[in-house]
């Protein structure tokens, strides 16, 4: 029970500190889940993110469910997810009920412009951390560059890119098995 409560609190904390979508959550996840609580490794987090991007639903929720499940099974997934959405429900309800034109407030707009710059810097830092772990050989570098430029320059959907990378992994598996068979 204590651990479930901690899952709830940790993800509520993460939910209340994320500005933007699931990607902006990554630096905070690295800090809270990998560094502080050691609930999973950076590699695991990357795997969850990869799957979260090509399965239905919000990436942030998918990642929370993965980590909750890893710790405490099905019920852990539920606690992590409810923790993640809890701050949103509270904050949005207050704003929707009491503050008219919240997003038009000048002070909010200025604060947000500042936060956006910070989110860029945080995502850059997160990308460097991930890159160090994920781009370990020439093959990985090629996959990285291909996916990066295709997603920047074309409208091809994320799902197709992730699926293609997964398929490439299946081919790698076949090639490696053959090599092992030969040697």
């Amino acid at each position: 029970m204590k651990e479930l409560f901690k899952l709830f609190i940790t993800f509520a904390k993460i939910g209340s500190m994320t500005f933007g979508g699931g990607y902006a959550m990554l630096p905070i996840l690295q800090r809270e889940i990998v560094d502080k609580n050691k609930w999973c490794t950076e590699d695991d987090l990357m795997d969850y993110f990869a799957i979260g991007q090509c399965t239905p639903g919000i990436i942030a929720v998918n990642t929370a469910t993965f980590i909750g499940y890893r710790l405490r099974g099905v019920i852990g997934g539920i606690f992590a997810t409810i923790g993640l959405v809890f701050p949103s429900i509270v904050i949005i309800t207050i704003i929707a009920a009491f503050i008219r034109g919240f997003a038009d407030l000048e002070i909010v707009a200025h604060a947000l412009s500042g936060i956006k710059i910070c989110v860029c810097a945080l995502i850059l830092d997160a990308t460097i951390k991930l890159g160090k772990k994920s781009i370990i050989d020439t093959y990985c570098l090629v996959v990285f560059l291909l996916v990066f430029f295709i997603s920047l320059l074309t409208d091809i959907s994320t799902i197709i890119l992730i699926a293609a990378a997964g398929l490439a992994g299946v081919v790698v598996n076949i090639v490696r098995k053959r090599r092992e068979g030969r040697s």
Partner: protein
Amino acid sequence: MLYLRLFYEFFKTGLFAIGGGLATLPFLYEISEKTGWFSTQDISNMIAVSESTPGPIGINMSTYVGFHTAYGPYGFAGALLGGIIATLALVIPSLVIIEIISGFLKKFKDSTLVKNVFYSLRPASTALVAAAGLGVAKTALLTDSQLIWAVPDIFSIVNWVALLIGGLLFAAIRFFKFHPIVYIAASAVIGIVLQL
């Protein structure tokens, strides 16, 4: 029954919107058209509020829509329930799907096939994060992100003040290793003080 309808519409969105919060947008437009619960102008307001408050955008949006929709007929308490129902409906499909995938992964985590698939997925996932970061950078560091392909030299639309702040923040993040929220709070204050 409004609540059932809310649940149904957001469950559907959660089941079919793939790739994060903004993927829910086309579904919101469809709901608006079909039900008349809110206008497209309302959607713009919802996006603005969702983006300027903490929490994943998709979640914020569903809470806002659920609250907004139920407020008229049911008052505050009813609206609160509406927000909760819409939000839960949105997350239930992914919760169920990820629990199933998690169970599957746990069983096959030692298979070399699964290992090789992830070996290949990780750089792809990193690339998508990098590309998403560049998307945010475009709106945060350029004075007019629409013009990126139109202007003859890109330097004329760079917001130099923002770029300088971003550079300093990045250096601070690499050097001091404080919790991310410290930098987020500091940059919000900087934004207000400098009227960015």
